[in-house]
């Protein structure tokens, strides 16, 4: 508890430090630069000391300050930093973000900052000029969504997604716009001067949904993927539609008279804009993919291509005034698959991180300024108009989902039920885009302050009320869920089998539908696209890659296991345990020690089992970076585990953990409970004490890669790029070949326990041989000819499925 308190105070401290910093900095701003498109506000000089010396002095100035020169980037930096600190702040105490969406917190902090600024009569930053928003802040946000769009479910549901995004948005805009226009006719509200065009414009703005908060909730409770992807896709494409409509209505709002023909022109324009964006996106996507084919020698700038091409797509689309959001989204969707295969693992991680980072900064800033602006701008409050806006936004959204689902359901294999529809309708939060759009409205719209106020109201209302309540509600009504964490080979094999079966059955009954097209596309992809776009174009079955990934994970686990000498991965251990407990006296081992292990595990280990990419929240990166971090950790922990203290009896091979226990040996002799606690304290004496060993363990990651045999195994199976490790791998391999004869034996037993790694060579191989022999005797070779490395299932049944390294026969 006290930890929490101290954390909170920490948060406050951070915030206040920063507030003061900000305030201090703005205090010395001398004069504002003119220039139309400043991102940052004209801030009044505070009668502060004049920062720069007077010009008439001819002497060489000893000390000068030219604040005006750096003002804009300087202030941007400070704002970004402030927003980021806020973000750090409420992630310190993790549980807050589970119950209160991040956007709420950001807005709240924005409100606080706004309050402070207001109280000291500071003018709010006029961050959001139209250009700044559309050219700099919007692209990262959409790139983020587009790049991390889960591709498979998206294409499986593309019809529904587009249906909701396009028709739904039109429905909402027109519905809300019309009804508001009707409201405007009521004299009592005093808003008769808002004409139809302006109403439509406003309605368009507030029909842009931005369900970041909802998505992260959906993800947490792993709601079924159809619902997830429809909400995700809707928010993405609905941005595109909204921006197009916005521009159109913005134009129309200017026109004195709207002729019928303009409506048709509008529709035509709408299509041109949409498909034009699509076309540019695909074009640039392929060009980007093709470019990365040749970047293997310039890995440093690989990620740059991705950003430059997507930005280029965006800008070119802007140039022709077609939907730039469509362009950048399709561009990222198109290139993602190919690019990620072309670039190195590092670049891939970099790309993802940067995309995430830019996107979330942009969004953080917008939400943050939303809070600030809420306090500091002039509002025009009109009860009637604002309340009706809220009401209509709800009603039309609900109605829209209801009606549109009825229409789309007959075309869906899995229809949306009422619960799904509720999720869809309730997930319609308004967010950053709406705010930005309304804020960038041109000034000639008379009621802009009212629109701003109404939009802020609806955003606050939906974000706070719906955002906070959606988790309990969704859990309460128990929406159908999908288990996304099945990371087993069987599941992968069978989903492949199912796909092929479905494609086959569809062929059999002569229907063209989803599976058929998917099948055809995959074939085309493998035959043509991959050849052109991917350097190493051998198609890799997803089964094989999953298999590799699992092997990799298991290698990590083994290493982890080895490290803290008892931090045994629970799965191995529990299987082992259960087996033992069925035997004889081992029960003792269970309770306290296991608990102890779990403690250590929870402290020391990453959750390796976590599925890597799957879905990504808008604010969190896919955690596939773990693997490498684990390697690094491995390095330290391996060294640590080589401390003398960690081996109580050097003669006893630790590897017994993984082998079936030789009959008659007591488990406890190898796992004296006392050892469980040894681990952590002695890190300091890592390598220094073992200079001789350092020659072998010079490079940490290499040393760990030595242990990663399964990877090398896989190399024989398939092409080389065992992603993150390949580099290390290669080195490790070359070493291995150059090393003594013992290498083969250590090859065969991956989880080579630490002592094996550093014990004298002959001793090592000797004990290993003994072990193996003993082991083989036990299992008795089955009738099937042993594949060069695969294990016979029977004996392994006792172990974690993939932990079969100990039993690999050495290559013949």
């Amino acid at each position, binding site marked *: 508890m006290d930890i929490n308190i101290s954390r909170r105070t920490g948060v406050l401290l951070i915030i206040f430090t920063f507030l003061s910093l900000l305030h201090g900095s703005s205090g010395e701003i001398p004069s504002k630069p003119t220039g139309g498109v400043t991102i940052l506000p004209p801030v009044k000089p505070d009668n502060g000391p004049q920062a720069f010396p007077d010009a008439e002095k001819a002497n060489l100035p000893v000390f000068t300050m030219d604040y005006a020169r750096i003002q804009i980037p300087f202030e941007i930096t400070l704002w970004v930093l402030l927003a980021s600190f806020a973000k750090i702040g409420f992630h310190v105490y993790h549980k807050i973000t589970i119950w209160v969406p991040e956007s709420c917190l950001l807005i709240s902090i924005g409100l606080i900052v706004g309050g402070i600024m207001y109280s000291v009569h500071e003018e709010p930053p006029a961050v959001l000029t139209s250009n700044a928003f559309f050219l700099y802040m919007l692209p990262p946000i959409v790139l983020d969504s587009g790049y991390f769009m889960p591709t498979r479910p998206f294409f*499986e549901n593309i019809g529904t997604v587009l249906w909701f995004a396009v028709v739904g948005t039109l429905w909402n805009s027109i519905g809300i716009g019309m009804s508001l226009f009707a409201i405007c006719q009521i004299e009592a509200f005093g808003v008769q001067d808002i004409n139809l065009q302006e109403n439509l414009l406003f309605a368009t703005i507030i029909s842009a949904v931005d369900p970041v908060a909802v998505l992260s909730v959906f993800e947490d409770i792993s709601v079924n*993927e159809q619902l997830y992807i429809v909400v995700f896709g809707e928010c993405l494409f609905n941005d595109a539609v909204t921006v197009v409509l916005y521009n159109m209505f913005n134009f129309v709002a200017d026109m004195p008279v709207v002729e019928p023909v303009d409506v048709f022109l509008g529709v035509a324009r709408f299509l041109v804009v949409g498909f034009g964006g699509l076309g540019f996106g695909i074009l640039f996507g392929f060009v980007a993919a093709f470019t990365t084919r040749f970047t293997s020698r310039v890995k440093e700038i690989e990620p740059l291509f991705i950003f430059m091409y997507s930005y280029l797509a965006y800008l070119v689309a802007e140039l022709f005034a077609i939907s730039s959001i469509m362009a950048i989204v399709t561009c990222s969707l198109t290139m993602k698959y190919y690019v990620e295969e072309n670039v190195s693992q590092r670049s891939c991680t970099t790309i993802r991180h940067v995309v995430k980072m830019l996107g979330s900064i942009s969004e953080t800033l917008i939400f943050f300024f939303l809070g600030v602006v809420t306090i500091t701008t002039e509002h025009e409050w009109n009860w009637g108009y604002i309340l009706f806006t809220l009401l209509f936004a709800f009603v039309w959204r609900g109605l829209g989902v209801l009606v549109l689902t009825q229409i789309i*359901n007959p*075309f869906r*294999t899995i*229809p949306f*039920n009422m619960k799904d529809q509720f999720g869809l309708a309730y997930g319609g939060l308004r967010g950053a885009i709406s705010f930005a759009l309304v804020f960038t409205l041109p000034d000639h719209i008379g009621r802009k302050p009212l629109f701003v106020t109404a939009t802020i109201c609806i955003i606050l209302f939906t974000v706070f009320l719906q955002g906070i309540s959606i988790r309990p509600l969704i859990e309460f009504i128990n929406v159908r869920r999908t*288990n996304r964490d*099945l990371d*087993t*080979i*069987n*599941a992968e*094999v*069978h989903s492949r*089998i199912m*796909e*092929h*079966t*479905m494609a*086959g*059955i569809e*062929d*059999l*009954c*002569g*229907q*063209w539908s989803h*599976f058929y097209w998917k*099948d055809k596309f995959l*074939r085309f992809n493998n035959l043509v696209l991959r050849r052109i776009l991917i350097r190493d174009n*051998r198609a*890799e*079955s997803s*089964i*094989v890659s999953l*298999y590799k990934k*699992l092997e990799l994970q298991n290698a990590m686990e083994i290493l982890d296991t080895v490290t803290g000498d008892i931090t045994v991965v629970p799965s191995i251990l529990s*299987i082992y345990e259960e*087996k033992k407990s*069925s035997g004889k006296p081992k029960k003792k081992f269970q309770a306290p020690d296991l608990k102890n292990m779990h403690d250590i595990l929870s402290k020391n280990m990453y959750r390796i089992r976590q599925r890597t990419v799957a879905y990504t929240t808008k604010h969190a990166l896919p955690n596939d970076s773990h693997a490498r971090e684990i390697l690094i950790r491995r390095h330290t922990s391996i060294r640590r585990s080589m401390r003398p203290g960690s081996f109580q009896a050097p003669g006893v091979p630790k590897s017994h953990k993984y082998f079936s226990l030789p009959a008659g040996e007591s488990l406890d002799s190898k796992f004296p409970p006392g050892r469980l606690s040894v681990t952590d304290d002695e890190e300091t004496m890592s390598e220094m004490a073992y200079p001789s060993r350092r020659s072998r363990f010079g490079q940490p990651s290499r040393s760990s890669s030595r242990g990663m045999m399964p990877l090398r195994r896989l190399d*024989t*199976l398939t092409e080389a790029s065992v992603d993150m490790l390949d580099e290390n791998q290669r080195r490790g391999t070359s070493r291995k070949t150059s090393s003594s004869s013992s290498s083969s034996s250590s090859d065969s037993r991956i989880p080579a326990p630490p002592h094996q790694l550093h014990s004298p060579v002959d001793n090592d191989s000797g004990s290993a041989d003994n072990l193996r022999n003993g082991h083989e005797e*036990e299992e008795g070779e089955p009738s*099937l000819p042993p*594949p*060069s*490395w*695969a*294990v016979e*299932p*029977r*004996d*392994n*049944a*006792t172990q*974690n*499925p*993939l932990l*079969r390294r100990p039993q690999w026969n050495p290559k013949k």
Partner: protein
Amino acid sequence: MGASQTRAEHQYQDLADKTGFSFEQIKNLFQRFQQLSGNEETISRANLDSIPALANNPIRKQIIGAFFDKRNQHQDEVGSCDQIGFEQFLMVMSHFRPPNLRTTDEEKETMRKEKLRFLFNMHDSDNDGTITLAEYRKVVEELLSKSGEIGQETAKAIADAAMLEVASINVPNMGPEEFYEGITFEHFEEILKGLEMESRMHIRFLDVDTSTMRCGKSQS
């Protein structure tokens, strides 16, 4: 003419009751059936083998096999036949009928089980109720056979790993001297317990007459 039509309708009604398809769907499938069989009463393996669109399907053999597998035809027989009639054809197809909004949870559960059984039968080629390692390997090999340069070794390795996984999930307490002889249906259910099948094992059978599309398709 009228009589034969009512007879056909009567027959359709029977089939609809048995399989849950609508008349339209049955009619469509019947047309397809005739097209495949060359207007014969029954269809043989050779008919299905010659479907051009199927040629690239890596597990074509299993899929076609499934149609001639008596276990998939809701009869209590085992073994396979050489010829199937329209009714059997429909029976096999009915495994992939999607649920609708009125389907209850129990029905969904049964449907899921049927689908699992279908998959299981695709593996279990010798009808003995277990998937042995050899059978599993064979399927995985076929599955990967179109994926380019993946050797048999890989396929084997993957099948082995998968088998191990099954064993460890289902028989955690197995001693080293025991032998896991194969996946039974219960185990099969267990390993695929969390796998989402709703969106993957369903085909939206068309209601409308798509004979024109079908022609185009079968020529392609």
